[in-house]
């Protein structure tokens, strides 16, 4: 009985990966050159950037919340790294920990508002997104200071054959994330809180602290992703994180993580990232207008969320 359910779950993740590769095959046929090593490498790097934000996003969503402030934590990550290093690779030694720590703090701010003050996650993170935007725009006056170190650029845009280095980096981080969620007591508690905060409390879990930590880790991942993204595109611009707001949520939803919390696996999120990036590539390759691309993208998200909430509904009865 339970074997069947386990199979059903991993089966749907396998299906998601399959869909991604079918899409990729399809575009490669429709658009010659799409399947080239150089292009696949670029795709793999895009998947990795989305993957890092979606990794973060998985945590709040598993607890039954959501983080919509990823865009500007992402931006701050990129700007902060450039400002701290001024392009000097040597200074990365302290700049990277500072970026991660600032991301952690921004996330903790979200988590504090949500867990301790009791603000609804969507409201809290939307508001903090604007606050972070204001901070960044206010401090930088819109122009990036410093420049992106070559080390970051090499990591985030380099690669060999079909894969970018960043993709491998993401895979390594993902192993840690998967272990964290599936194999540690911390992961158990995340699922517990997402299933029932009341029961989690009675089971001796510090629910508020745990929720705060989920948002803090999400903020850290967003800042890290932003820093690496700036290396990928070799530039900094305000609003560079905007697309990751919905894309991170979509990746999690497509991957089969319930948007009301408590069920789903990080492997699913990874599959979701593949689907989204390849789908974006497909839409661009088909020469659809920006508007049509957004509509199709929106419909896919809508379907993913619908299926995700159905799944939870069936689970309850």
């Amino acid at each position, binding site marked *: *009985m*339970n074997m069947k359910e386990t199979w059903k779950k991993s089966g749907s993740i396998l299906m998601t990966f399959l869909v991604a590769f079918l899409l990729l095959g399809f575009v490669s046929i429709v658009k010659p050159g799409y399947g080239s090593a150089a292009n696949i490498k670029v795709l793999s790097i895009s998947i990795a950037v989305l993957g890092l934000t979606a990794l973060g996003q998985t945590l709040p969503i598993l607890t039954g919340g959501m983080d919509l402030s990823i865009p500007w934590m992402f931006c701050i990550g990129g700007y902060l790294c450039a400002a701290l290093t001024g392009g000097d690779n040597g200074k990365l030694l302290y700049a990277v920990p500072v970026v991660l720590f600032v991301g952690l703090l921004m996330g903790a701010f979200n988590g504090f508002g949500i867990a301790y003050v009791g603000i609804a996650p969507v409201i809290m993170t939307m508001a903090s997104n604007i606050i972070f935007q204001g901070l960044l725009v206010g401090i930088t006056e819109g122009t990036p200071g410093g420049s992106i170190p070559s080390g970051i650029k090499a990591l985030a845009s380099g690669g060999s054959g079909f894969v970018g280095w960043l993709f491998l980096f993401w895979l390594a981080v993902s192993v840690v994330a998967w*272990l964290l969620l599936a*194999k*540690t*007591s911390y992961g*158990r*508690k995340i*699922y*517990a809180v997402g*299933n*029932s905060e*009341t*029961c*989690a*409390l*009675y*089971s*001796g*879990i*510090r629910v508020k602290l745990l929720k705060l930590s989920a948002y803090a880790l999400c903020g850290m991942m967003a800042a890290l992703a932003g820093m690496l993204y700036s290396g990928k595109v070799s530039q900094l611009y305000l609003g560079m994180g905007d697309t990751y707001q919905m894309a991170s949520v979509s990746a999690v939803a497509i991957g089969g993580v319930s948007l009301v919390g*408590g*069920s789903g696996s990080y492997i699913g999120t990874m599959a979701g990232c593949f689907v989204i990036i390849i789908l974006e590539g497909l839409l661009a390759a088909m020469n659809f207008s920006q508007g049509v691309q957004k509509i199709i993208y929106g419909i896919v998200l809508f379907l993913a969320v619908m299926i995700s909430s159905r799944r939870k509904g069936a*689970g*309850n009865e």
Partner: protein
Amino acid sequence: MADLELNHISKAFNGNYALSDVTLSCNRGEVHALLGENGAGKSTLLKVLAGAYHPDEGEIKVFGKTAVIKNPTDAMRYGIGCVYQELSFIPDLSVAENIFIGRIPKTKFGNFDYKKLRRMTLELFEKYDVDEIDPDAKAGMISLSQKQIMEILKILSKDPEIVILDEATSALAENRVQWLLRLARKLADAGKIVIFISHRMAEIKDGCDRITILRNGTYAGTLPVDENLDMDEVISMMLGRKMSSYFPEIEDCTREEVALELKNVTYGRALRGVNLKLHKGEVLGIGGLAGQGQAELLKALYGVYPTEGEILLNGKPIRIKSPKDAIQKGIGLVPEERGIQGLFLNLGIDFNISIPSIEKLTSGLLVSRRKEAELVEKYMNVLAVKAAGPQALARELSGGNQQKIVMAKILSCEPELLLMHDITRGVDVGTKKEMFGLVRTLAKEGKPVLFFSTDVEELVNVCDRVIVMRDGKVAASLKLKTLTKENIIGASIGADGKGGDTEDEKA
């Protein structure tokens, strides 16, 4: 064939049978009483009839036709009107508006015709002989008895063929109780069916024609109300069990050492200075009417609520800051609501049992699957859990097995002090017996148990000593000869002649 038939109705919630194969049949011209203990399934049965719940099995026949009642609107179409135990009115609307809500007449200009509404209300009042309510008064401002009358009239104004009165008399003023009984008779004489629920035997004897008795969600029988009606028989049908075989032998293993001592513990208005001593190896029952601070006391000792006053655990003063803190200090709580506080219904048995001790099961950074499996297996065996396997989902288990999982989860933390909140609610008889046996075994091992139950019978038959709570204080402490049902109930309602807190007696 009867005019109204509910045949073989079953309804389960999360695997707990609230109703199992229940049958009820009534005829026109009859006032039919439905009797049973709390939780016997009366309200569930009525909600099935009124369309609030959909039965899992069984059929409903209304006046010879099979009825599919999916919602209250369907029920109204079949002429079924239900006055619920929980009043549901809109406090800011007037009495007249509440009665005719959704059916307020309009003038030819399309606005509400309040003159006509008032007239309709007064006509309704006159028809049913009601004169103490002002139709224009805000519903929130009138007395409880008047609110109940308003609700009754609201249903009657729709001219139902089947009138259900769910504990409608409990909120009524004394003269209105007689009025309702007469009204029920009048409706029956006019060829309607009245289904009447009440806990007051006298009302049933005076006003009803037949009684159907439910017990633990099953049909226990139907009796005619006549001079031969034996009330003792009715009560034994309601309870339907031989107590002696069902409760454990009590062997008093209370020890000298005091495990838990409370000195003037207060929390808001719920706890107003609780003093008690709980000894090692003692099962101390907590009784009293509902809402006298018993639930708050257990939660406070589990760190859910902050308290003032002194709590001494094994002689040392402690503060319990959170459930996590409580577990670390060796306190375990079997909480009130199994499905909400006790279990993750959508997760497996293994997850549920291991979650409070998950940190102890971690070797290095990762949870040890082997240690976890051993722990889960051990406690599933201790409690004789019946399930497909350790990964079976909690929601798929019966109520009794769910309660065993909660128990297993708490025991797996190896607590030194156990707090139990109504551990036999919605649990089958067999499991109850096992639970009581387990409680006594824990006591024998020297563990102190604080055992709160709403069932007086349980308190008398499981505990070494019982304290009765009233108004957030300990009102009485009963042991040995004084530990009787009568004394517990007496102390609950303050009929023992004692008031306020009693000095905790020395054991």
